[in-house]
């Protein structure tokens, strides 16, 4: 295919196009210390992105503007500022329908304004990469870290990966394209980070050389026609389904939704190969587990260390992909746990709800601690929650 045949050639910027697996696993890497926004820039520099559309909203504005710098430098094919997130996501759709590899970013209220586009991207099988830097969506106006918006997009049908660190952010952005563009997947992907905690915090990352670029997107491997009039236009249907109240119409809508959900599930095999699994376990044979994703999990790690100093052994289950959701993996990882704590940065505890709906004997799940609106979650709070539960003091969370 076109993509593979370009391996070993050089792009307009002089970067050598390399096989994805070489870039991920073999290419020598060098250590850097940079913010999450800068990590986005470095990932997109190497991602062979054809088009990106940007719109300002905190905290993603910085990364979105840096992608603009990449366009000026010649690493990104085209770039412009849209007029709202709703328009931006539609512009991304148009670019993807036209066969381009597309990148965009959003945050908080922007994600909400864009929302109508996400199920459309899924139904249209557009493998757009959106980096969501979550923040508060409540009123009064709040720009602080908060993951409520993430709970609201998990059932749009997109692949959703939650990165905990700058390194994961870099790797997920590049690996995400490869998984999302597989013909048996071909779905949009949201790589999510916690706004500020990851986007604006410096972290150690290992990066391959900027002289290397990911294999480009080949739109002719798509399971649906690329809208470029390079393949024959066919009459799509005799009766437009939208207007027909009949069995065929209902069955078509139902089966296409089932197919897009199945495509999301089919991403597992590619994801497991590239990410090493949909979740990660540390000491998951312990009686007490912390199960979470993103930076709430990072706080959990610190709590595990503090508890270990007091002789309390706590294991960790880190969820990397929220969609597809690792149901069976979570059931297995938690099968010996007596108490399962789910720390979260949102007011409703949606991840705990997901886990409760997944495992047997779900009274084991303690939905917390959860903090919201930009409140920090010191590890001591997690420690206290766990100790309270262990001393059988009543814990009421969510």
């Amino acid at each position, binding site marked *: 295919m076109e993509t593979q045949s370009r391996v070993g050639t050089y792009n307009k910027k002089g970067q050598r196009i390399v096989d994805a697996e070489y870039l991920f696993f073999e290419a020598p890497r060098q250590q850097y210390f940079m913010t999450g926004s800068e990590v986005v820039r470095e990932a997109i520099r190497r991602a062979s992105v054809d088009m990106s559309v940007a719109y300002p909203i905190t905290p993603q504005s910085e990364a979105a503007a840096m992608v603009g710098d990449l366009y000026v430098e010649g690493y990104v094919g085209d770039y412009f500022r849209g007029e709202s997130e709703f328009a931006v996501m539609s512009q991304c759709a148009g670019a993807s329908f036209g066969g381009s590899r597309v990148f965009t970013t959003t945050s908080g209220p922007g994600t909400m304004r864009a929302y109508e586009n996400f199920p459309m991207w899924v139904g249209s099988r557009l493998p757009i990469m959106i980096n969501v830097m979550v923040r508060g969506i409540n009123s009064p106006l709040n720009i602080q870290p908060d993951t409520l918006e993430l709970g609201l997009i998990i059932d749009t049908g997109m692949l959703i990966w939650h990165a905990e660190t700058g390194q994961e952010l870099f790797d997920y952005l590049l690996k995400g394209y490869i998984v999302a563009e597989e013909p048996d997947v071909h779905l949009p992907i949201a790589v999510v980070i916690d706004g500020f905690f990851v986007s604006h915090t410096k972290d150690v990352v290992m990066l391959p050389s900027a002289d290397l670029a990911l294999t480009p997107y080949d739109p002719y491997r798509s399971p649906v*026609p690329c809208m470029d009039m390079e393949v024959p236009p066919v009459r799509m249907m005799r*009766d437009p389904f939208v207007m027909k109240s009949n069995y065929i119409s209902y069955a078509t809508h139902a089966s296409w939704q089932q197919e897009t959900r199945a495509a999301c599930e089919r991403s597992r095999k590619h994801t497991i190969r590239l990410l090493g699994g949909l979740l990660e376990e540390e000491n998951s044979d312990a009686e007490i587990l912390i199960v979470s994703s993103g930076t709430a999990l990072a706080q959990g790690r610190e709590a595990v260390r503090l508890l270990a100093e007091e002789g309390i052994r706590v294991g960790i289950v880190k969820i990397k992909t929220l969609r597809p959701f690792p149901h069976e993996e979570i059931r297995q990882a938690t099968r010996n746990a007596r108490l399962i704590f789910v720390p979260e940065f949102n007011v409703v505890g949606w991840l705990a709800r997901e886990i409760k709906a997944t495992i047997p004997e779900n009274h084991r799940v303690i939905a917390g601690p959860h903090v919201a609106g930009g409140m920090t979650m010191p590890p001591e709070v997690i420690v206290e929650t766990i100790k309270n539960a262990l001393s059988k003091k009543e814990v009421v969370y969510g």
Partner: protein
Amino acid sequence: MGKDKIKINKEFYDIMPPEYQDLVNDATYGKEGRGWKDVGVAKELIEEHSLCAGCPESIAFRYVLACLPNPEDTVMVGSTGCTSLVFPHVAVHNIHSLFGNQNAVASGLKRSLAHRFPGKIKDVVVLAGDGATVDIGLDMTLQSWFRQDKFLTICFDNELYANTGGQESGLMQKGFVSKMAPAGKKFEKVRLPDIARESGCHYVTMLTVSKPNRVEKAIRQGVLIAREIGPTYIQLYTPCILEIGKQMMEGLQEMRDSEGPGERFAFQEYMSEEAKQYLASLEAQKKPVAAIAGHA
């Protein structure tokens, strides 16, 4: 794309649907000077439609498709409404995604095709109703013009929301009584052609579809100017005979009655200086001998 890409493998010819065989044999992809006169003679790029009997939008749709100068390299973008019932039958790539976002989709699409096919003609044409263009999508309509994105926007103006059952729209006449305007519409028909000109469109025209020659010229100019110079806008009156209480044979007369001098669809046309010069240069290329003689 060109006609060679739609060819059928010999082994499969007999099992292809007859309408596809016709498309390969008799469609006007790549034909110089294609136009409305091909309707009924050559294979049309619109197979069927599920619009109401006698709907003027159906003939407008056929004219538009017959008059695109380069359908083999044209991608159309639609929106929700009556037009979305027709697009699935159309033999050019077309995109329906959401209601009102058509110009945003077209901006992304046009830039994507320009990036992927440098130096090659890839026209993008938006075709949407007045609700999509002027009400829910107005922001994106105007912003694509401000940005000078190079595609043609066609609005099928039927002065109401036809597909949802005849509700008030911004392009409805003042005083018209309809659903959601139970006491009559309170404000004037939005003057989108004026706004289009002020927003940077290089070619703007408003007309009915009663005269196919005029429609043909508008579509050709709209596409060609958008391809080379910048955004263009065509507003076509396609009355919803169902919702204004007309019979199926009365659509044409309704258009004729609305385009006389002083009527709301009296022919309007605006062209920027750049666009005029470009069209003149095309004319000059067509008549090389005359042009050289003119210089001498």
